[in-house]
């Protein structure tokens, strides 16, 4: 479903060029749970931006569901993000004054979904993310960290995206809550067959995924199935 071929990304700051990605290639199939792991400065954020259609590569190609995404305009990228990608951020990024339901319906506004349909989809997504029904009308600044991240997951799910892209989803949570969130991702992958890409620098977090792509200095250093790797040991 995702085909990435020899992607490079170079940033120009003044006279110095920074090579964030120096030729990355991999494929991700529908229903996979993949972790992209690497220390800070490894280029994993840049890679996430490209997979998430927030940015385009300097060279190389990125095909999502047979569509080349690497050379689209800003508004075409917005269209892709709107319909094909669901984001979960480290800092949650909910609208603080809006209710849980309002936050989850937000992507549907931009996807031009009918008003009647929106609430139904939002409730379904919130249930899949394991959110309690009695909190749907709470304002998001009245929730705990774990609950907030579930709302964010529901928001990522709501428009039925091809990929859910989670950028350090547990970075701002304590270990216990973090594990609950990661369990939620695992459940979404196993039970609802969602394709999930998890970006993290923590090995323990990456272990929740079935496949780990290890990045360092803009290159893939290791790409392996967790279970197969265990066999090698």
């Amino acid at each position: 479903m995702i085909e990435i071929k020899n992607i490079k990304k170079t940033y120009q700051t003044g006279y110095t060029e920074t090579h964030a990605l120096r030729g990355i290639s991999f494929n991700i199939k529908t229903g996979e749970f993949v972790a992209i792991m690497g220390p800070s400065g490894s280029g994993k954020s840049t890679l996430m931006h490209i997979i998430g259609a927030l940015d385009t590569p300097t060279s190389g190609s990125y095909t999502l569901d047979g569509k080349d995404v690497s050379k689209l305009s800003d508004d075409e990228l917005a269209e892709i993000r709107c319909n094909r990608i669901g984001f979960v951020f480290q800092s949650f990024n909910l609208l603080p004054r809006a209710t849980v339901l309002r936050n989850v319906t937000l992507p549907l506004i931009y996807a031009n979904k009918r008003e009647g349909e929106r609430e139904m989809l939002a409730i379904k997504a919130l249930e899949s993310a394991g959110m309690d029904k009695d909190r749907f009308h709470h304002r998001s600044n009245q929730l705990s960290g774990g609950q907030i991240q579930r709302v964010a997951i529901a928001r990522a799910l709501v428009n039925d995206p091809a990929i859910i892209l989670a950028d350090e989803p547990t970075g701002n949570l304590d270990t216990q809550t973090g594990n609950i969130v990661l369990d939620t991702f695992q459940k979404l992958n196993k039970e609802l067959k969602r394709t999930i890409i998890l970006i993290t620098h923590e090995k323990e977090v990456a272990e929740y995924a079935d496949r780990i792509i290890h990045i360092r200095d803009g290159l893939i250093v290791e790409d392996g199935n967790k279970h197969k790797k265990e066999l090698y040991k």
Partner: protein
Amino acid sequence: MTTTDIIHETISALTANKVRTSLTMLGIVIGISSVITMVSIGQGAQSSIAQSIEAIGSNLILINPGAQRASGYQVSAGRGSSHTLTPADATAIEENVSNIQAVSPEISGRYQITAKGTNTNTQIVGATPSYATVHNIQIDEGVFISDQDIRNRTKVAVLGPTTRDDLFGIDAEAMGQVIRIKGIQFKIIGITKSKGGGGFGNQDDMVYTPLPSSQMFLLGDSSYLTSIAISAIDSSTMTNVQNDVTTLLLERHRIGDPTQADFNIMNQADIVSAASSVTGTFTILLGAVAGISLLVGGIGIMNMMLTTVTERTKEIGLRKAIGAKRRDINIQFLSEAVALTIFGGMIGIILGWTAAYIITKLGVLQTSVSLSSILLSFGVSAAIGIIFGYYPARRASKLNPIEALRYE
């Protein structure tokens, strides 16, 4: 993004910081309300001046001595005193021009008048009985100047109510009393009804005396008039009467070239339009001064919107990440600015209207709020929202989602 969504987003954004929203809106409220009030004062002045010109008489044509001039442009350099109109001209007009209701030969001048130790300086008009018809003069007490007064050159006077009040005290009994003009005694035989209207050619502060008496006793010369006023039968015949009178007078004064005429002739419509061009300028001036405050209000909106965009950078980043296009962000911020100005504009209209109403009620000035000034200010406030909201909204829509999401 549907219209309902935009309205919802706008309301929740504007109610998030109510103090800031209302302070910003206040700029527009003050701007719009002062435009409404100022323009209503200007238009009120315009209509009250038009009214007081109508009060001079109906279907009136005025002939003054001196060269013709384009209305409103040239200062009459002392030609008002030219001795070119004669009583014979007035008689000739009455006899030869059709569609005339009455012709009033007049002389006028300002004199000091005294009565029992008090005195005042006012306009003395030498008039004939037709003056009352031509100028819509109505008598409150006593009688106006009669044909007999003209024939006998009696020394009688009819006073305007203001003159009566100045000389004898407010609403005092003045009938039969004597006033002195240039040392000559005139007996009061009548008081005119108040016509209202102030300042501009106040018809209430006047003394009317029989035309021959004033010529003889005040000017010492009965050969000329200071003006002839004609009232036409109705407004449709005014132009014809004006043309006929011009032809007749040119002929009588033996002048071939109409541009060299030694008199000028104006009808009431000319006077009204000359006066309203003055008040129109006045209205524009007032409106422009108020408009400056509207501009300042608009800059306030822009300032707030720029602050909002900076504060909400992260939110904009998120919206873009979940699929908002440039257009969506643009519309969202633009509609916030427009909502501020439209709502502020509506409050401003109500406030300005109230202020104009109070000004009228207190009797300070006559005001009139017109539909056009309301529609205009409403349009202007919406336009200000668009103009001053455009730049901040554009800035928001152009934010890079990655950088916006990282913004702390």
